[in-house]
């Protein structure tokens, strides 16, 4: 990705024009990454704002020769991971202590039933497994890129991808059997 590295130096010095330019240039990347994990525009927008606030709070840590888009992707994916974990905890708490009558799972109006099942199966995965799988299958990242983005070893990423696929297949198999 081509961009003016001078923008980072100026943003580090507190230049608001440079900061706005950085947001303008990199917001599509951040939106795209967050869209992989959240289905409502408001959630994506909120999280994208949080990501840029985090980025500018730590902009001093970025070296001008560093891979800024990679660093930004790491911040965005980590923010998604934190948010997914929070959402999952809330969901577990609701299922454990909430009202006994649980509403039917959400099916997107335009979504075919089979794809809805696949989506629900993916959403039921632990974020630890879901994030690398989506980066691999949807973002088309290599294992090396995923490892760099998540701060894991390549072996660890391969193990997580294997477990994610296995669990997903098991969930979808169960759904088919129930049918």
């Amino acid at each position, binding site marked *: 990705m081509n961009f003016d590295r001078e923008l980072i130096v100026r943003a580090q010095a507190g230049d608001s024009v440079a900061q706005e330019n950085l947001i303008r240039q990199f917001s599509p990347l951040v939106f795209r990454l967050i869209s992989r994990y959240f289905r409502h525009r408001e959630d994506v927008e909120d999280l994208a704002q949080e990501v840029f*606030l985090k980025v500018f709070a730590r902009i001093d840590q970025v070296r001008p020769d560093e891979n800024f888009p990679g660093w930004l992707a790491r911040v965005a994916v980590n923010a998604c991971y934190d948010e997914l974990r929070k959402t999952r905890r809330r969901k577990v708490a609701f299922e454990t202590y909430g009202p006994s009558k649980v509403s039917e799972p959400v099916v997107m109006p335009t979504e075919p039933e089979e794809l809805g099942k696949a*989506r629900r199966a993916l959403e039921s995965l632990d974020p630890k497994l879901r994030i690398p799988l989506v980066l691999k*299958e949807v973002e088309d990242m290599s294992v090396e890129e995923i490892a760099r983005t998540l701060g894991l070893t390549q072996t660890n990423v391969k193990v997580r991808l294997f477990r994610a696929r296995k669990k997903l297949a098991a969930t979808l198999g169960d759904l088919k059997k129930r049918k």
Partner: protein
Amino acid sequence: MNLLNEFFQKERSRVFEPDPHFPQRVMARLKEQAPVENGLWETILGSTRPVLALALTLVFALIGIHLWAPVQPARGMIESYFTSEVPADETFLYTGSEPAPSHDVLEQLMAPESDQ
């Protein structure tokens, strides 16, 4: 697995784009945050300085007292209180140390022995 492949394929096309005013909204939040952070640091620094100044003053005062004041007083409180009122002969009642007898007293004590 075909179902999953189809799902992932569909997911690739599902992307939200930022609207043109997104950068301005982030900048507005950034500006909102900045004075709060400065204010907090200013408060912390402002409250630290007087505490530090007071602590330094106390340390210097203690050092001064330690240097200039004698470590042991020459007279104790009780001694200094009784010095003006108690006659020298009665001092031993309060201090426990008996004063050395005077020459006349010794003479009187010795006289009967020599007479015997």
